């Protein structure tokens, strides 16, 4: 038989929603097969069926030509199928090694044996160049490293079919290159790879074939070689997608956010994480902070939004001329701040609340949603329906869907809907388009530009240079907690930004921006 994996006529519903409607997927040995589709198209669901997390309502799965029953991830394991989930499934307080062997522990005289697996895993690490510290705790290592742990987990279980659900969404460009090299290596060995991604150029770069889903239906399977990026986008959303953002020249006015002499150290004060940061964001402009992950962006956002307290004397953050350095989070919101957080599961959503309840998570106390401390559910659900409609948030039960059950991209859309619909004049958006499909990205970029044109000040933190070049009116490059350069996107290029990002070049900037570009 030719195919390693065949999924035939797969159908799966969640209540009234048909997440997978009669879908076929066939993957050969040694093939890299991409799955493309809008947010909520059913990609993760289809893969969860292959991995035994969900049971299809209808349809057959064949492995090497033989019909199989996959009722649980254990069955998938036995069939040598491994999966890296969209949101990792690791135990934060366990070490890397413990996480890898978890569920397959060896025993020696009744005791847990970690030494035999350690050898096997070390061999895998060397062979595929998957650098991780086996003794580190998961919560202490970077997202990229966590992903390598997930990959090692699959390899340790001798997976022959590897499923990657949006593996690149959380990686830096360098890490993505590394990942792709590993994936190609796997393919060469005859393993079958299924990869979900929203980034069309990644599909072009790595995949042989691509299956496209739209709203739960199978639109087609194409040979990637002969299909252009624009064609892929069109197949996926059913219309032409505009990749470049159209926007008029920004006409910035008064400063809205002002950051002065911002310094920040790590907990035990051994390392300076932010070094004398100075900048302003003005009415009617989009400022992008570009940089490689882990150069202080997260800390900067946390200090501006109040998730972490400013500890150093002399550091000053003001919003609309009001000193908010020591203000509580709610006071900052009240002063006009909105915040699209980097981590949508940890901060952005209360996963066990439904969509409507999540839409009011930072405004529930406003007169519109309560009277005399009693929630006004009529208004709350009405408001939810409005946002769902306007932002095209898709889920199985509409405003009553639990946030946990929603697809990753739709969770992100829900947060964006909440934060841009609230009264504000300053928006911090940390990686606002992570995990979104191209159609949704187009929409978010448009929304950001509209916000700007309405006179709001916008600060975007992005790891993706394409995005930065596309939407920024002004670019600040951050490296090791310092602003290395302030650039005009029209007068610079990706290569130059790259040099600043890696610290090989430094501009003399005062960081201030009153005088615009230098």
């Amino acid at each position, binding site marked *: 038989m030719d195919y390693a994996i065949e999924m035939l006529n797969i159908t799966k519903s969640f209540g009234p929603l048909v997440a997978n409607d009669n879908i076929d997927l066939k993957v050969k040995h040694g093939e890299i097969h991409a799955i493309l589709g809008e947010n909520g198209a059913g990609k993760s669901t289809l893969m969860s069926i292959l991995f035994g997390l969900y*049971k299809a309502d209808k349809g057959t799965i064949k492995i090497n030509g033989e019909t199989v029953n996959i009722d649980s991830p254990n069955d998938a394991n036995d069939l040598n199928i491994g999966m890296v989930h969209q949101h990792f499934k690791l135990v934060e307080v366990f070490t890397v090694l413990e996480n890898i062997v978890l569920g397959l522990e060896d025993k020696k005289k009744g005791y847990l044996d970690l030494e035999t697996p350690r050898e096997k895993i070390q061999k895998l690490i060397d062979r595929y160049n998957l650098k991780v510290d086996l003794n580190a705790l998961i919560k202490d290592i970077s997202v990229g490293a966590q992903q390598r742990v997930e990959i090692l987990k699959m390899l340790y279980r001798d997976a022959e079919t590897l499923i990657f659900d949006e593996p690149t969404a959380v990686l830096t460009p360098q890490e993505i290159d590394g990942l792709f090299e590993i994936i190609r290596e796997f393919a060469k060995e005859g393993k079958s790879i299924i990869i979900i991604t929203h980034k069309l150029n990644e599909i072009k770069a790595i995949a042989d074939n691509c299956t496209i889903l739209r709203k739960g239906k199978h639109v*087609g399977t194409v040979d990637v070689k002969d299909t252009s990026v624009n064609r892929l986008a069109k197949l996926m959303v*059913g219309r032409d997608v505009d990749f470049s953002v159209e926007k008029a020249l920004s006409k910035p006015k008064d400063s809205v956010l002002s950051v002065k002499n911002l310094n920040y150290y790590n907990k035990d004060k051994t390392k300076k994480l932010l070094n004398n940061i100075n900048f302003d964001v003005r009415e009617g402009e989009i400022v992008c902070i570009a940089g490689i992950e882990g150069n202080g962006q997260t800390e900067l956002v946390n200090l501006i939004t109040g*998730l972490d307290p400013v500890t150093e004397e002399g550091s000053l953050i003001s919003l609309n001329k009001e000193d908010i350095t020591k203000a509580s989070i709610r006071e900052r919101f009240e002063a006009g701040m909105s915040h699209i957080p980097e981590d949508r599961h*940890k*901060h952005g959503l209360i*996963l066990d*609340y439904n969509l409507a309840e999540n839409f009011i998570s930072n405004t529930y106390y406003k007169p519109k949603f309560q009277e005399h*401390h009693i929630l006004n559910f009529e208004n709350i659900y009405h408001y939810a329906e409005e946002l769902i409609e306007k932002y095209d948030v898709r889920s199985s039960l509409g405003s009553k869907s639990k946030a946990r059950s929603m697809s990753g991209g739709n969770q992100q859309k829900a947060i964006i809907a909440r934060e841009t619909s609230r009264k504000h004049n300053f928006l911090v958006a940390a990686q606002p388009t992570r995990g979104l499909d191209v159609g949704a990205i187009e929409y978010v970029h448009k929304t950001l530009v509209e916000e700007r044109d309405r006179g709001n000040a916008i600060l975007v933190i992005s790891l993706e240079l394409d995005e930065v070049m596309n939407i920024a009116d002004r670019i600040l490059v951050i490296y090791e907690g310092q602003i290395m350069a302030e650039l005009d996107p029209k007068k610079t290029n990706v290569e130059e930004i790259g040099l600043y990002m890696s610290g090989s070049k430094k501009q003399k900037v005062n960081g201030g921006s009153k005088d615009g570009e230098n």
Partner: protein
Amino acid sequence: MEKIKQFFSKLWVSIKDFFVNFNYKKVLKIFTNTKVLNSFAAIFVGLLIGFIVMIFVAKNPFTGEWSFNTALDGLERLFGGGSRSLKNFGDVLFKAAPLILVGLSVGFAFKTGLFNIGASGQFMVGGVAALYAANLLTLPTGLHFVVAALAGIAAGAIWGFVPGILKAIYNVNEVITTIMMNYIAMYLTVMMVTYPKVYDGGLTAINTNFPTAHTPVLGLDKLFPGSNIDISIIIAILVAVLIWFVLEKTTLGYQLKAVGHSKDASKYAGINYKKSVAVSMMIAGGLAGLAAALYYLPIKPAYFRPIEVISPIGFEGISIALIGQSHPLAIIFSGTLISYIKEGASQMQLFGFNKEITNIVISVIIYMIAISSYLGMVINKRKERKRELAKEEETDEENKEEPQVKGGEING
């Protein structure tokens, strides 16, 4: 004042709505809900196992020989003891009131992400405070009861507040602090009980002769002649409804549950985590304190003696909250149920059974509830498999035709 009035009028409207829109289909749906079915199944299995134990230990009271009939008699009492007469049922309701409130104390904390093991301690200090107020103050009938009950609530609330604030500020696990607060409450109350002005040496307990402070009966004894019933059961039910209302309909409930679901996400949303935890533990403590007031203030009260034992009622509260799955309205039923079983068990003693059998029954029920969600899953899986097998046979025929291969593109 205006605000409070508005609040209660809203509360009233939503309760009225509940009855006006009362719809038997909805109720049926509640009862066929798997969670509820699980609880019922667990209760049934608990009683069944209790019966099996009884079969083993049953002895004919006259001959002393093993007797299956005695076991049946005992079972009949266990099942039916609480409803043999209006008096019995009145007593069941009477004793259910404090149980419901302790259950609410644990359940409320649990809904907001906290584990209140300290209901016992909160109960003990609440009891002493209520009895002190009953003995030491001179107030008109009725008002005196209210003040004594409030004293109980306040003391319980303080006892809950301490672990709450420790958790909020220093992130000390509330399980540990509430357990320690139980010990502190135990030694403290032992000392306070023997304070000469309240202690009755003849009773070896706090004096219970405080005519103006007893829980009003309000003629309920006419409905349940001969029983000890008073308005405590009505108070307990009203408080349960209030707690449900607060959790489901108010901003405070929204906020407390949000913190319970995710500390980080609620912090991000600008909710004051520290305040929420402290408030939540305070409310939980207050509920346990009120339970104590209703336990010690009735005309036929329980006695507060200086013994160095942590009151077991807090742990019963955990059971009741678990059986009611922390839902305030369900806790009304689970609290009453436990009271009912206890009444049955005390009557079982007539046939020589040890009343500790109730503890066996209750623990089995809790074990069953703990594993029932798992059992439910297994059963569901089985059902699904069967359905699939049936389906497969059908689809096998269809599949003989070549499955259609979709290639290229359909939409251009």
